[in-house]
């Protein structure tokens, strides 16, 4: 503690001295005197039919405060040039000594303005001083884009069940920080949403700093009933008067969709017997948009159950067509009487369909008779013993 206190005592005055020196250096006035009308960019490009704003500054170096009348000369016919200060039109400005006043020159350029460059002169006139600033306005038909959209993969292909993710980078070239709102137009019933490239939060607009770019993800989900074909998606990014568009395309390839059901839609098998094969007719339909090829059938049930098919594979089912096969279900020898679930599956290159069948296993009549026989033997033993050994 004591050491620290001593150090403070020694160091603190030194710090104060150093800061005094720095302040004195900053306050040395530049060797400039007078009144100046300043702008950062004396020559600008403007697109006809738009409104532009040019920042100005009236700087007073070492003069007493004075009233300066402001005016703009040289505006061509049809143009409107207005000087704004603090957001409203102003006619005069009064900068204090060594102070400046911010001004803005607002230019409304008519759409039919000819392409030649024009020079406007902004004047500030006081009692003794007067300054003027010529500003050259170039008229450009096409300004460099302020927003650009670059899709990384503009055309995607998939099935109606897949989700199409377009990663689009938005670049802000406008020189200002912008908040860009995003929109996408897609065919009817297509679902579109924007997310960050590595996020799940959906968004409608993104802030982008000047000169930077940002990746957003456009997720398009076609309706599951969509037919095969190519669909255009248009993505729009808007910020104020700037708009950028990009065309994306989405190709949906046809997909088979299989369904399995029993004949007449029945999914129950009533009279299976333990250890005996039961034939169940199945209808396999393709409701999809493409043909299903090479359909493999399989089934599963309780352990020990055998589920086979008279045709193990089906070569092809055209869209909208159905095929009938027979499933051969054999419950295990040891299956108790009761209801069991079995699953029948059809799969064709990634497309699978499955249906649960409820199989009711009844007691085999043979074993029912055997049961009765054993009960009869039991009664025979009893009555036989009584009859044989009872009092005669």
């Amino acid at each position, binding site marked *: 503690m004591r050491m620290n206190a001593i150090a403070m005592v020694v160091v603190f005055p030194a710090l104060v001295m150093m800061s005094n020196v720095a302040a004195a250096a900053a306050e040395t006035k530049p060797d400039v005197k007078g009144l100046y009308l300043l702008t950062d960019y004396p020559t600008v490009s403007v697109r006809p039919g738009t409104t532009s704003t040019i920042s100005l500054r009236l700087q007073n170096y070492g003069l007493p405060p004075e009233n300066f009348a402001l005016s703009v000369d040289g505006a061509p016919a049809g143009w409107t040039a207005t000087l704004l200060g603090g957001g409203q039109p102003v006619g005069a400005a009064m900068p204090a000594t060594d102070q400046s006043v911010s001004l803005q020159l607002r230019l409304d350029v008519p759409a039919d303005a000819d392409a030649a460059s024009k020079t406007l002169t902004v004047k500030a006139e006081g009692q003794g001083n007067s300054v003027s600033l010529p500003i050259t306005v170039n008229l450009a038909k096409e300004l460099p884009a302020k927003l650009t959209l670059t899709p990384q993969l503009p055309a995607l292909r998939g099935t109606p069940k897949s989700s199409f993710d377009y990663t689009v980078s938005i670049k802000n070239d406008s020189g200002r920080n912008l908040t860009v709102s995003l929109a996408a137009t897609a065919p009817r019933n297509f679902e579109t949403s924007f997310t960050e490239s590595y996020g799940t939060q959906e968004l409608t607009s993104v802030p982008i700093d000047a000169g930077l770019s940002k990746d957003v993800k456009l997720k398009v989900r076609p309706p599951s009933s969509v037919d095969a074909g190519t669909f255009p998606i248009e993505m729009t990014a808007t910020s104020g008067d700037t708009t950028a568009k990009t065309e994306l395309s989405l190709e949906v390839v046809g997909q088979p969709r299989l369904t399995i059901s029993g004949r007449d839609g029945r999914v129950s098998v009533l009279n299976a017997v333990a250890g005996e094969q039961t034939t169940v007719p199945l209808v396999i339909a393709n409701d999809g948009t493409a043909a299903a090829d090479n359909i493999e059938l399989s089934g599963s049930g309780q352990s020990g159950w055998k589920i086979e098919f008279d045709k193990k594979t089906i070569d092809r089912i055209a869209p909208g067509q159905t095929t009938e096969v027979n499933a051969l279900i054999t419950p295990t020898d*040891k299956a*108790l*009487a009761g209801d*069991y679930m079995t699953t029948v599956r059809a799969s064709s290159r990634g497309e699978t369909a499955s249906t649960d069948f409820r199989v009711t296993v009844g007691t085999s009549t043979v074993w*029912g008779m055997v049961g009765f026989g054993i009960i009869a033997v039991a009664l025979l033993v009893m009555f036989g013993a009584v009859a044989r*050994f*009872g009092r005669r």
Partner: protein
Amino acid sequence: MRREGSPWQGLGTVLLKELADHFDSPRMLLLALLMVLAAAVPFYSAVDQLRTTTSEDPFLLLKLFNPGGQTLSVVAILGFVIPVMAIGLGFDAVNGEHNRRTLSRILAQPIYRDALLAGKFLAGIIILAVNLMCLWLLVAGFGVFFLGVPPSGDEFARALVFYFIAVAYAGAWLGMAMLFSVLFRSPATAALLALGVWLFMTLLWPMISPFIAALVSPPDVRYTLLGILDPQTAAWQQGLSRISPYLLFEEATRTILTPTTPSLGPVLDQIRALRGEVVGAALPLRESLAIAWPGAVSLIAGAIVLFVATYVVFQRQEVRA
């Protein structure tokens, strides 16, 4: 004085006469009905449980006798009812003859006391065996009828072994009932004492024997802290519990009827689990038999010992009334 002629002379006559008496008596009919009704309830619940929870089981027939878990099984009911039936058949075997004053008349015939006692005992055993066989067939028959699954050979053999153990168990209780019928002249005393022993052995002894085991061999603190039974105490507990024919029967039948959990008693099970042995695997019939053998033999030996005691007491008794 040397005995002349075969001691078995007249055995057949006594046996047939006793069988005829029993088969015609309403007592046997009532006892048989009691056994069937008592077994019907747990049998039905076992069938119900199997139909709803089991899709396939390699030991269905055995599950009908002993479904496992907390449910009351046919076997547990039989463990209670078989002694009642045996006592009911045997409690007045000898003193009944005394009281009707027929004993001296019978012995006046060329029939030795050996043949009389053996005939009565054999007749009781045959009656019990026939009844149990009936019950066994009813369980198997209704089981096949309700579940629709035939028993496998292994199951059938196990069920038959269970039947023989049950007959041996019945024989032990019949021997006890007959011993009391020789010891006491009043059938009521004999019946009450036999029922008292039955109650003590089936209900009280399973509760008392762990206490006695803990008294004789107090469990080591180290085992208690570990939460397992001291092997010494467990051995005492098991040994003491085997005094009761009910617990012997229960142990033997459990081993035979549940091949998947062949329990060797709490302590051995613990040791097996500690050694990493899988306790749930099914044992072959031969192994189950080897485990159940001491219990079954004890039951048979108990029946013989009790019969011999009865014989000795009867031979030394004054039969003239």
